[in-house]
């Protein structure tokens, strides 16, 4: 493997053993003066599946935005596959990390497959657009997310849940080794919630895509994610397997409610 060959057009290097796909080192972030994240240390290894949970305003979405390079940290460093995010251009970041947009509005009519094809923007030829490989990736993503029946329809006519699936397909078509999702199930019915979770698990198991998802539903998180990170007031309050993390004391301390999370696998 020659280093020189790893040009801008080459896919990002496969995560070497031990190099985390995503690493946040002492990251702090703020909107204007308001501190939202304080001293976050978090590493996500290749092929890991991590659910990010916590009460509203804990900084979950902010953490994802910092990881994606959309928001600059006020302190600390973000690394994608070992490289500091500040050293990477936008296309290089997009080839390492795909974000499922949290609901997007389209100013003009666009067919479902045209929206999914936007996931190929970091890969397609800058002047000529989609090539055969890109079209194949779009078709595969549509198939995989199971939205073939929506092809040809104006994405703006779809239900919120259907739109969410289209945006998920877009991120799958992007084909990055890390997939980041903010509330991927919020508009979905029960069957689609489970299907999306199963799809994330499958992408994770079969393709080795690392997944980081913000989830509100602790049962879904516990059932489908082997690792759970609890965020509270901008800090990591707990990090580990569902059984270790989602005990009644922590849930009471963080969420302020008395519940017991059924951690059975059924």
């Amino acid at each position: 493997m020659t280093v020189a060959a790893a040009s801008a057009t080459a896919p990002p290097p496969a995560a070497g053993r031990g190099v985390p796909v995503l690493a946040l080192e002492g990251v702090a972030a703020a909107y204007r003066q308001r501190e939202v994240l304080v001293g976050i240390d978090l590493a996500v290894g290749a092929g890991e599946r991590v659910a990010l949970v916590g009460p509203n305003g804990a900084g979950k979405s902010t953490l994802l935005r910092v990881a994606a390079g959309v928001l600059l940290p006020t302190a600390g460093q973000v690394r994608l596959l070992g490289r500091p995010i500040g050293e990477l251009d936008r296309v290089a970041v997009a080839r390492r990390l795909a974000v499922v947009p949290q609901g997007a509005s389209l100013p003009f009519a666009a067919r479902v497959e045209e929206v999914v094809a936007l996931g190929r923007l970091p890969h397609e030829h800058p002047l000529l657009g989609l090539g055969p490989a890109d079209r194949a990736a779009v078709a595969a993503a549509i198939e995989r997310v199971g939205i073939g029946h929506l092809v040809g329809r104006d994405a703006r006519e779809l239900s919120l849940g259907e739109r969410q699936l289209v945006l998920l397909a877009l991120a799958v078509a992007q084909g990055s080794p890390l997939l980041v999702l903010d509330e991927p199930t919020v508009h979905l019915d029960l069957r689609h919630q489970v299907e999306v979770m199963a799809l994330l698990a499958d992408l994770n198991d079969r393709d080795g895509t690392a997944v980081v998802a913000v989830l509100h539903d602790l049962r879904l998180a516990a059932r489908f994610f082997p690792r759970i990170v609890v965020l509270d007031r901008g800090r990591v309050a707990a990090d580990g397997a569902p059984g270790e993390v989602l005990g009644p004391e922590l849930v009471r301390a963080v969420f302020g409610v008395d519940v017991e999370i059924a951690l059975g696998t059924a």
Partner: protein
Amino acid sequence: MASRGETLASAVTVGRPRTPPHRVGLVAGAGLAALAVALVAGVALGPVAIPPAETIAVLARRLLGLDLPVAVAPAVEAIVVDLRLPRVLTAMVVGAGLGIAGATLQGLLRNPLADPYVLGTASGAALGAAIAVLLPVRVLVLEFGLLHGLAFLGALGAIALVYRLARLTPLTPLTGLLLTGYAVGSLLAAGLAMAMYLSGTSLRQIFAYLLGGLDGASWLRLAVAAPLVLGAGLAMTARARALNGLLLGEEAATTLGIDVRRERALLLGLAALATAAAVAVAGLVGFVGLVVPHLVRLVVGPNARHVLPLSAIAGALLLVVADLGARLLGNLPVGVVTAVLGAPFFLALLRRTRAGYEL
């Protein structure tokens, strides 16, 4: 029926994305063919009608270097070469510039109501032109007078001012640009109103500029405006990728690998350049830059890689036809004709969504 069949077919061929390039090529070919016909018609028709054969003979010799065996009287050749051809070609360049600048600004601002004039360019150009009319100075460099120069600078200056001021606001970039553009535009429009109030007998001259027209077309002016419009148009088309990313919003574009801030500055500058060159030679021709990109999107969808060049072709076509109509109807202002031609056509298309695209 056709659209239903299409939808069914696509539902059967699961996941085979159809953004058929051959269809876009077909539309582009049809557009160019129509443009060629409009070119011949625009040159042949007028107070002195020139037979199509002679028109084509002159065009073929002058534009393509082909010698056709058709006799053409020198007077006819003079009308074609000195008067009509520069005018028709200028209409093409201006229409193309307004079409592509409109498409870029609609995509950039994510706003279907945007047009080339939305960020203060129209008021800036008009104020520049009005000041030029009022100043007791006459300058002429390469057939360009003070009016052309100040209109050009006014358009560019207004958008530069809007861009700088918008960045000082704490608003999100798009809201900031639109609101600042509105405020600056209103301010410049007040200046324009003042200039018109003070203009006395020159009012008609300012008013003619506001309505737009191609009476001032000449080879030399065309030779200056065309490279600006075509260059900016090509550069915008080369950045179509950024506009595609912006379909889903600025944050999504960023995560799809677009350097939004840089692309926004570049595309705004290029759109402003094309607009300024267009309004400097033809005044404030309305409607082309708003409607043409929508028409194109209705036919080929939202992919900016197709929408931008096709908007240039369609804009050129619309303005050549509108100018021809304006001349045949006794030298009406071309802006009136673009609106009269464009609006009903646009309304009719809004009611039909055969291609599956709606506004």
